[in-house]
C-alpha cells in the first residue's frame, strides 16, 4: 500500500472552500472553508449539532456538497472520491462494523475490502498491537462500548491511510486506553506524516491537537493553534475560588461587561474583555473573604464563550 501518490506532494491534506449542505431545505453547513496541513493532528470542535459529523462525511465523500469544493489529499472531493477513499480512514461516530461477525472476521473483511497484501499477517499484527487478543473471537456486537471504539480504530488503521477522519473516537473509552489512543495518533502523525482530523468534546483532547477549528452552525468560527485561539479571543478571566453562591453567579452573569460565567466545580470563571471594569465590578459584588484572582484564560473558557455567541446551535 505504500505508494507514491498525489497525496505525498501537496502541502494541505485538506483544502476545501465554501462548502454548503442542506438537509430537507435546512442549511446544516454554510460556506465552510477549511485548510489542514499535512501531518497534523487537527481537532474539530463545536457544540452538539454544529455539523462536525456532517463536515467529516463531506470530506470523505459520504455526502455530496450542494455547492463549494476543494481537495482532499490533492484529489478533488467530488470527482475523485474513489482515489480519496483509497487513502483515507473514516471512523464514524457510531459503531459501523458488523455486529454479527467476530472481531477477527471484521478485520479480515476490511483487509480484503482494501485489497491488502499479507492479510493474515496484518490482521494478526493489528490484533496484537491494539490489545484485541482476548476479544478476537467474540462477536463484535458483544463488545462493550469502549472496546468497540478501540476495535474501530484498529480497523480503520489497517490499510495505512494517509488521512484519518475520526468522529469522536474516544467517547466512552477509559482514561488509560484514551492515553494510549492519543499516543498512537501522535506517532502516526510524526512518524508517518498521517494527517488526523479528530472531533471531540473533551478539552484535554483538544489540547493535544496541534491546531483546531471550532465549528458552530455549520461554519468555522475560529481556527488556529491553542495559544492563537486563546489570544484571538481577547478574553480576560478571573477565578473566584471557592465560590458556591448561586446568587453571586446570577448577579455576575447579568453584568453587561461580563461575557460569560462558567462554573468548574467549586471555582467560578468570570470572563470579559475589559480587565479594569471586570476588576471593579467583581470587587464591588463579592464579600471581603471571597478569594479571587486573574488567571490565564483556558481553552474551555474560550469555547464556552464561543458557544454562547449568536444564540444556540442546531437542535
Amino acid at each position, binding site marked *: 500500500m505504500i505508494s507514491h501518490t498525489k497525496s505525498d506532494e501537496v502541502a494541505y491534506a485538506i483544502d476545501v472552500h465554501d462548502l454548503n449542505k442542506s*438537509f430537507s431545505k435546512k442549511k446544516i453547513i454554510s460556506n465552510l472553508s477549511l485548510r489542514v496541513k499535512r501531518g497534523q493532528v487537527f481537532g474539530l470542535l463545536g457544540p452538539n449539532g454544529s455539523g462536525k459529523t456532517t463536515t467529516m462525511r463531506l470530506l470523505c465523500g*459520504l455526502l455530496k456538497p450542494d455547492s463549494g469544493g476543494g481537495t482532499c489529499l490533492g484529489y478533488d472531493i467530488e470527482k475523485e472520491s474513489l482515489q480519496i477513499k483509497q487513502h483515507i480512514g*473514516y471512523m464514524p461516530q457510531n459503531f*459501523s462494523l*458488523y455486529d454479527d461477525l467476530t472481531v477477527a472476521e471484521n478485520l479480515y473483511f*476490511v483487509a480484503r475490502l482494501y485489497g491488502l497484501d499479507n492479510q493474515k499477517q496484518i490482521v494478526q499484527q493489528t490484533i496484537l498491537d491494539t490489545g484485541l487478543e482476548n476479544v478476537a473471537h467474540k462477536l463484535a456486537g458483544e463488545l462493550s462500548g469502549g472496546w468497540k471504539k478501540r476495535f474501530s480504530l484498529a*480497523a480503520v488503521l489497517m490499510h495505512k491511510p494517509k488521512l484519518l477522519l475520526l468522529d469522536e473516537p474516544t467517547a466512552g473509552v477509559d482514561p488509560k486506553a484514551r492515553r494510549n489512543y492519543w499516543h498512537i495518533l501522535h506517532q502516526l502523525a510524526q512518524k508517518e506524516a498521517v494527517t488526523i482530523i479528530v472531533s471531540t468534546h473533551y478539552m484535554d483532547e483538544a489540547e493535544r491537537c496541534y491546531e483546531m477549528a471550532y465549528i458552530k452552525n455549520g461554519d468555522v468560527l475560529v481556527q488556529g493553534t491553542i495559544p492563537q485561539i486563546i489570544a484571538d479571543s481577547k478574553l480576560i478571566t478571573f477565578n473566584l475560588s471557592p465560590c458556591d453562591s448561586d446568587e453571586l453567579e446570577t448577579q455576575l452573569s447579568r453584568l453587561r461587561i461580563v461575557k460569560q460565567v462558567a462554573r468548574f466545580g467549586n471555582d467560578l470563571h468570570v470572563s470579559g474583555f475589559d480587565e479594569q471594569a471586570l476588576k471593579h465590578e467583581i470587587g464591588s459584588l463579592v464579600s471581603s473573604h471571597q478569594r479571587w484572582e486573574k488567571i490565564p484564560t483556558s481553552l474551555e473558557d474560550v469555547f464556552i464563550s464561543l458557544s454562547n455567541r449568536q444564540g444556540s446551535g442546531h437542535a
Partner: protein
Amino acid sequence: MHKVKEWLLYHLLGSRLKAILIKEFIQLTRDKVAITMIMMLPLIQLALFGYAINMNPHSLPTAVVVGEESVFSREFIRGLQNTAYFDIKYQMLSIEEADKLMEKNDALFIISIPFNFSKELIRGQRPQILIEADATEPVAIANAVAAGQALIPHVYQEMTKRSLPDLQYIPPPIDLVLHQKYNPENITQYNIVPGLMGVILTMTMVMVTALAITRERERGTIESLLAAPVHPWEVMIGKILPYIAIGYIQLFVILFAAHYLFHIPMMGSLWLLLISSLPFILSNLVVGIMFSSISKSQLQAMQMTFYFFLPSLLLSGFMFPFSGMPLWARVIGEILPLTHYVRIVRGIMLKGNSWEIVMPELGAIVLFGITMLSIAVLRYRQTID
C-alpha cells in the same frame, strides 16, 4: 368485585398503558410510506380479488382441428362459441400445429372433429368429438368442459327436429370424449407443485436482497462500507451472488419433493429447467436490490416485497386461471417474472417443452431483470443521505 374493577381500571387506563398507546400512535403516523401502504392495501386487494380474479373464466383460447367441413361441424363449433367459454381462435389446423399451440399456452383446448363426422352422425353411429384440454390449468378448464358436455344434447336439436328426428333420442348423437392432456388423472399437485417452485423463489429471493442494503443503512455499517473504495456494482453483485446458491438449494429441495413425495413427472429436460431458473432467480434478486436501494428502512423494504409478491401470486396464473383475467391484469401478469416462470416450469415438467418454447418466456424474464437492474443502479446511492 370492587377490587377487580379497580385493578382493571388501573391497568387499562393507567398511565403506563397510555404512554405506550401514545408512543405507538406517534410512531405509526411518522412513517409516511407505511401509512400509504396500509391505506393502499385494501384498494390493491379489492382490485386484485374483486376484479382480476375470475374462477369461472370465459373466452378460453381454443383450436379446432376439423377433419371435415360441413353444416354439422360448423353448427357444433358455433354451439361451442355460443357457450362463451370457448374462443375459437384457430381453425384449419393440422394436429401438429394445434399441439404446438397448446405447448406454447396459446390454446387451452384442442377440439378435433373427425373426418367422417356428418356421415356417421346421420347414420346414427355417434361419431366421436375429441376435446383435449390443457389440464395443467384445471381451474380454467373445468367449467368450459362441463359447458361443452351440456351442449351436446342441444346443439343439433333445432336442425334434427325436422329432418332427422331419429337423432333426437338418448343417447345423444355425438360421443364427446374429453382428454385431459398433461395431467390425465387431474391431480391437483401437478398443477400446484411446479408453480410453487416459482412462488417460493420469488418470496425468498426478493426478500433477502431487499433487506441487504437497508440492513446496512439501518445498522450504520453503510458508513464504513461507503467510505471504502468499493464500486456500487461490487456491492450489488457481492450481495446477489451468495443467494443464487441459496436459490438453487431451494430449487433442488422442491424438485426432490416433487419427484419423491408428489410423484410429479419430469417430461422435459431437467437441465433446461435448471438453466432457465437462473434468469428467474437473478431477476428476483435484482428486484430485491432495487427495493433495497429505494427504501429507507428494512420495514419499508419488507412492505415493498409484499406488494411485489401479492400481485405475482395472484396474477401469474399460479393460483387463478390467467386466461380468466381482464386485460389490465394480464398485462401486469405478463410483466411479472413469476408468470413466465410458472409457464416454463409447468411446460418443462408436465408438457416436456423444449428450448424453442421456453425461450420467449425466458426473454420476458430477462427483460424484466435488466429493467429492474437499471433502476437499482440509477437509484443506488453512494452517499448516505
